[in-house]
């Protein structure tokens, strides 16, 4: 895989507007790919957007009173209710526009939360919102643990990863469960659009956000957001690590548009997962046996995904 494939040519970045809707002065850690993902998402959703943000890293680093990094309006209420708050914003705007109290205008309502706020504590509210069919985008910024509270495991933490509540111990070698497949859970709600993305592929990410915003009805985007602090890797390797997650098949990029699966980058051959693990402290303790077990699982899951693409292909 060419690392510049995403760019449709190396100069693609020059084509992107320099306008920022999420401004510097935010307090994310050095090399935080989540902050980058928020920046890219904001570039894509642009000005006519209202954000509902969950408690977590993003809320803390973007808006410590009296400062805010947001150029677009936003609200933070709690940890587990982002999808419900976003549904409320959408319903409220819809009602008062219909009743003529504010001018009719297309406004993107975007709910954002981390993996804990999405796949653990916020799952119920999210499921409700997706099922009710609100015209909103929900973006999960998945850094694979509760980073804001100090790197505790979530249901999105991958098998084997060492966190502060799934430490690599003498008996139990880190996380003992497989990562919850949140995009598939979202897709099972039969919503019009589900996608995975990673800021290592910025144009793909922005395109998916644009698409999600345009589509009528609920859309879900799951963004792998490398956390140098929690994953124990040097901050400069954030983008590289995200790329490896995709190229090893650990985190495939795909879309599910009206039930049809489509790989965003089709990898004829997956790189060994060890290449991805090697650079991260959270996987340092993995035995060869564990790596092989994960490798098998990654291949199987990737094949499963490819089958879904085949099965849902048009015509």
């Amino acid at each position, binding site marked *: 895989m060419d690392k*510049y494939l995403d*760019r449709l040519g*190396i*100069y*693609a*970045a*020059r084509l*992107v507007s*320099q306008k*920022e809707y*999420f*401004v*510097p*002065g*935010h*307090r*994310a850690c*050095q*090399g*935080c*790919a989540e*902050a*980058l993902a928020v*920046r*890219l998402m904001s570039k894509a959703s642009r000005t006519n957007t209202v954000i509902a943000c969950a408690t977590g890293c993003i809320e803390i680093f*973007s*808006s410590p*009173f*009296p*400062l*805010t*990094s*947001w*150029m*677009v*309006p936003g609200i933070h209420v709690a940890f587990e209710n982002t999808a419900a708050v976003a549904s409320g914003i959408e319903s409220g705007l819809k009602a008062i526009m219909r009743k003529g109290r504010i001018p009719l205008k297309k406004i993107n309502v975007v709910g954002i939360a981390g993996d804990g706020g999405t796949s653990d504590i916020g799952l119920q509210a999210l499921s409700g919102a997706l099922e009710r069919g609100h015209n909103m985008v929900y973006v999960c910024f998945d850094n694979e643990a509760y980073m804001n509270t100090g790197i505790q495991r979530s249901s999105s933490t991958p098998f084997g990863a060492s966190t502060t509540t799934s430490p690599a111990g003498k008996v139990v070698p880190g996380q003992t469960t497989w990562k919850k497949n949140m995009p598939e859970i979202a897709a099972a709600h039969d919503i019009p659009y589900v996608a995975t993305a990673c*800021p290592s592929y*910025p144009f793909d990410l922005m395109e998916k956000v644009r698409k999600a915003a345009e589509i009528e009805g609920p859309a879900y985007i799951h963004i792998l957001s490398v956390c*140098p602090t929690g994953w124990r890797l*040097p*901050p*400069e*390797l*954030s*983008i*590289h690590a995200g790329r490896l997650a995709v190229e090893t098949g650990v985190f495939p990029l795909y879309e599910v548009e009206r039930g049809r699966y489509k790989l965003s980058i089709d990898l004829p051959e997956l790189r060994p997962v060890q290449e991805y693990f090697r650079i991260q402290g959270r996987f340092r303790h993995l035995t060869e046996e564990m790596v092989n077990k994960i490798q098998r699982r990654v291949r199987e899951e990737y094949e499963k995904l490819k089958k879904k693409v085949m099965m849902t292909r048009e015509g």
Partner: protein
Amino acid sequence: MAKPENEITWKDLNVGFVVDEPGNASVYRTGDWRSQRPLYNRERCIRCGTCYIYCPDMAIKILEDGYIEHDLYYCKGCGICVQECPTGAITMVEEEEKDGD
């Protein structure tokens, strides 16, 4: 809010603790966090904008001529631009070192 936060009184606060100055976090200097800083070599730059698009801190500006400039007020010194530059036009140097330009 023009006042430093330790001088803000309860009477200064908006109803519901609302912040009504979008993007006012840009006053906050994150450049202080840096221990190393990027050193840019214009000669090696092919003006692709890769560093710009990957910067999590919006600390790289693309100039009119396509070359770039780091904004050291915000640059936290993460080194992503160094890592991702396809031509090696950016390197990290210790903060106290002179960069020579």
